[in-house]
């Protein structure tokens, strides 16, 4: 359960809103209970008075106060309900944003390498599910639980004051049992299942994707029917787990309802006994049982949230793992990396470095490489030769398995990664993601350099053209050039370009190559590519394969 703590902390930052929202729910609940209880008292009182009047005995009953009370409760319940929904929905929307921003900050603190390992539609899909679970934490879990407890305790105290300590004790026992059945006991019985379902779902998704991607080969090998059956069976297994959770939730909800109903019956019987003993009047004996009948609905909301609690905890654990605390030594967020290096150096040096993907044998061993300030170096290697790992290491994004990196601090490196990523934002924001002021003239010059000047000048929004899913679509080559322009605009001493010309035709490539030296005058440059054709003209080339 401690997995939920970071998220509860996020939520409780809006403590006053939560309290007001809970107060409104409480008002709605109490008006509902009050309406029923007072109505019951009123009817019983009028029946008793009516009986006396019919028998010719003088009797009077103030009908205006309870009548007004009943109307008052009816109105309060309606108004409080409306305000409660509005106010709490607003809160939920605020929490929604809070939770996402919190997670985003957490993720942004993670190392470059950790984030690279999290890519993929699958992970984003999972993230969405997990975030949904955090969104409903307050309104589904915390508020109903707290209020059910509060109202229960209140009713027990009323029983003590109105009827007898014995009734208070009996109610305390029955309501506590009902509460436990609806919450803790249900969680104990479904927690593991609900958590397992989450894992099963992820596995099932992976298996389904596998099945789809392998359809041609599986079918060719004659294995498709049996694979389909296996997948169907796994789907059934997954649902069987859900049926267990759903069924147990339903039974616990029913049992909690039975216990609260029995509490109402107990309150009635003990109340009527007190009445027979002359301690209270008949109408008063009716108040508590009716209020307790109203409590059934309050308890009925708890099991759904607690049946899912196991899944919610799993979601929280996964989010914590993704955005969790920094692992010492694995390299912190790049924006802060290398701050300790106060000596201004514009050269770069790797000494005896072992480099490779995380968790595997280094692909490059004992590499020593020195670049003086202003040097241009080309590195050529086929896929799998450790080229991109070397680029990461030079950029200071990934820790070395062994050896040292000295020279330009990571914050002074402009790095064009092999993968092109554009933001769903304007062209300007894509060129200058940190929003530092850059003149339009400079932006146009760099767009001209990468050969996008005309294309952008002809577009409607020009520099503020919206790129990404909702904006104008760029071709792969155009997107690559925007990414290149972004790197060229970044104030840096060391520029690393990993496969800069993916998707560009020869003419464009040559044009860019001609202008690069002037633009990058005085900076240290490393270009990596799969063969020499794809390089920028450099003074020196290293072939990784021949080392």
């Amino acid at each position: 359960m401690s997995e939920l703590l970071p998220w509860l902390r996020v939520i409780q930052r809006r403590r006053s809103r939560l309290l007001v929202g809970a107060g409104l729910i409480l008002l709605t609940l109490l008006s509902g209970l009050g309406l029923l209880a007072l109505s019951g008292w009123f009817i019983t009182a009028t029946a008793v008075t009516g009986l006396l009047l019919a028998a010719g005995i003088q009797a009077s009953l103030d009908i205006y106060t309870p009548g007004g009370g009943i109307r008052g409760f009816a109105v309060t319940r309606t108004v409080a309900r409306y305000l409660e929904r509005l106010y709490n929905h607003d809160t939920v929307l605020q929490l929604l944003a809070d939770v996402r921003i919190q997670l985003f900050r957490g993720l942004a603190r993670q190392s470059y390498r950790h984030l690279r390992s999290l890519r993929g539609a699958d992970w984003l899909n999972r993230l969405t599910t997990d975030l949904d679970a955090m969104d409903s934490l307050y309104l589904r879990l915390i508020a109903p639980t707290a209020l059910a407890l509060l109202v229960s305790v209140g009713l027990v105290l009323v029983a003590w004051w109105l009827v007898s300590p014995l009734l208070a004790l009996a109610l305390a026992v029955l309501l506590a049992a009902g509460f436990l059945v609806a919450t803790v006991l249900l969680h104990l019985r479904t927690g593991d299942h609900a958590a397992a379902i989450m894992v099963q779902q992820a596995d099932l998704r992976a298996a389904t994707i596998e099945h789809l991607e392998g359809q041609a080969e599986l079918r060719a090998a004659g294995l498709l029917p049996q694979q389909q059956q296996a997948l169907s069976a796994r789907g059934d297994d997954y649902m069987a787990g859900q049926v267990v959770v759903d069924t147990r939730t339903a039974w616990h909800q029913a049992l909690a309802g039975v216990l609260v109903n029995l509490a109402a019956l107990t309150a009635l019987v003990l109340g009527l006994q007190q009445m027979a003993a002359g301690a209270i009047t008949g109408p008063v004996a009716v108040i508590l049982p009716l209020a307790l009948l109203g409590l059934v609905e309050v308890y009925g909301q708890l099991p759904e949230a607690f049946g899912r609690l196991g899944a919610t905890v799993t979601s929280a654990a996964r989010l914590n793992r993704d955005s969790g605390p920094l692992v010492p030594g694995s390299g912190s967020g790049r924006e802060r990396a290398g701050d300790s290096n106060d000596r201004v150096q514009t050269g770069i040096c790797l000494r005896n470095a072992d480099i490779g993907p995380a968790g595997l044998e280094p692909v490059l061993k004992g590499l020593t490489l020195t670049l003086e300030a202003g040097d241009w170096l080309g590195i050529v290697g086929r896929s799998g030769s450790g080229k991109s790992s070397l680029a990461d290491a030079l950029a200071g994004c990934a820790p070395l398995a062994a050896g040292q990196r000295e020279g330009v601090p990571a914050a002074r490196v402009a790095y064009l990664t092999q993968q092109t990523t554009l933001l769903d934002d304007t062209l300007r924001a894509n060129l200058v993601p940190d929003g530092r002021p850059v003149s339009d003239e400079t932006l146009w010059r760099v767009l001209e350099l990468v050969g996008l000047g005309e294309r952008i000048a002809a577009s409607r929004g020009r520099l503020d053209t919206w790129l990404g899913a909702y904006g104008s679509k760029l071709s792969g080559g155009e997107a690559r050039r925007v990414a290149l322009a972004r790197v060229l605009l970044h104030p840096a001493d060391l520029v690393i370009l990993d496969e800069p010309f993916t998707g560009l035709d020869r003419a464009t490539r040559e044009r860019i190559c001609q202008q690069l030296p002037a633009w990058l005058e005085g900076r240290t440059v490393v270009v990596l590519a799969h063969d020499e054709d794809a390089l920028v003209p450099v003074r020196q080339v290293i072939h990784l394969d021949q080392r």
Partner: protein
Amino acid sequence: MEAVESRPDAGASAEAPLAGLTPRRWLAGLAVVGQRQIRLTILAGTLAGLATIAQMGLLAWLVHQTVIVETPLSQLMAVMAALVLMIVLRGALLGLQGRFAASSSRAIRGAVRRQLLATWQQAGPGRLQGESAATLASEWLDQVEALHGYFARFLPQMMLCVLVPLAILAVAAWLDWLAALLLLFSAPLIPLFMALVGMGAKKVNQQHFQVIGRLSGQFLDKVRALTTLQLFGGVERATDILAARSEEYRDVTMKTLRVAFLSSAVLEFFSSVAIAVVAIYIGFGLLGYISFGPSDSLTLFSGLWILLLAPEFFQPLRQLAQHYHDRAAALGASAQLMDRLQSAPTTTPPSSTLAAHPDRIELHSVTLRYEDRGPVLNRLSLSLPRGGCVALVGPSGGGKSSLLHVLAGFLPPDGGTVSVFGEAPGHRPFGWLGQSPFLLQGSWADNLRLVAPAATEADMQQALARVGLGDLPGQRAAGLDSPVSEQGSGLSGGQARRLSLARIFLADYPLVLLDEPTAGLDADSQTVIIEALAALKAEGRTLVLATHHDSLLALADRCLHVEGGDVRDV
């Protein structure tokens, strides 16, 4: 002989069962699968409602007997026992309702999942290639999951919110018709209420999901670009944008919600007012203040019973409002699922292979067309000998892949006959190597034994050696039992394709079909694959490969140019 069978266009009019169906109808049709369980759900819910009515009646009777008649409690033990019984019975019925609901939804979702699997198979790998596997998998999992609430909660509740209030109304009318009229009047016809609830809930729901969708979109986009943002110092700005956008969305949403929540307030208002009016009417009636109607005969018993039933009268409706989002989610999902299920072409039984030669691959007058294009293959006749190696060349989109898919049996031709060594295509296992090779998330051994379960360690090592991967598992700790891809690094494209090729060496397939086996690979992998194919050819296997690559062409005995429906020798 001109025996071109004609077949209606795939997927259009022939696949009638789903065409023209609204999502709502489709859902109603699905309910048939779990009908028994759904009926049991409704039955249990209705009986629970009746048990509630009885429980309230007994409670009112108990109060009446003690307060008005002044019967000692000790003489009312039977009533109390009956009360306990009703309470327990109601609980048991509600539990059963949940149980039946869970299993009806399970049966229906299982059926939809099987339908989808069948659709995928019918569509075949060729047609599925255009869709991302993640999208299809999400339909199979998440969209089908979205149907759960509809069948488990909403659909039964629809019935319950008619049946239970009607039963309550009947009891109330029997006790005091004027009170029943008040209840009925407070709920000016349940259907109208439901429409009201529906409209409001729909709007809230749409708004909510739209906002979440946009917010998630923004958020996911930023997360996707996080490494880039880190590299260029854009994290702070992105966080600010995220916060600002959330605030904007919240503002817009709250404006609509102010109106939309009114519908639930109306429901709440009517149910509160109904209780209040009924209570005051009964109270005045009991005091004898009302001189008309049936109020003379009101007793504490009948009055209290009606009062206790009043909230129960509205309860099913309020629950329906809570489940309304289930309906919206299911309708959204079914629109998408129906599109997918409709996309499958009708399967035609494999055309008879007349006088098929047991040692040749034969195509007679084969025609293949896609819905919105001219024929990809036009009355194509071909005869290829066993053990040969045929290369298919031609521009991309010219029909090379389609021809391979026909030979594989993935695409049934629109006309003509195909036979592979005397049998229907795809009847016997064969080797397939596409551009995106298939890897299991498992060990090297898992991946190799997929097609040859009996393969020994030595067999596997040998097969790997033939594709130049002999030393790769050795670098891992657990050898062949170590996972193919570990966190942070998978195999490169070339390595994956070579692993796939190693499978073909393990299984003794007479026919191997290859779609651009060397495209996009580095020189090393290309060389290895070409050598391996030469070895397969030398083993006497029949190879048909689509390629652009010159060194692969050298391997071929025959070279066919495929373009615009025609195939000719080069």
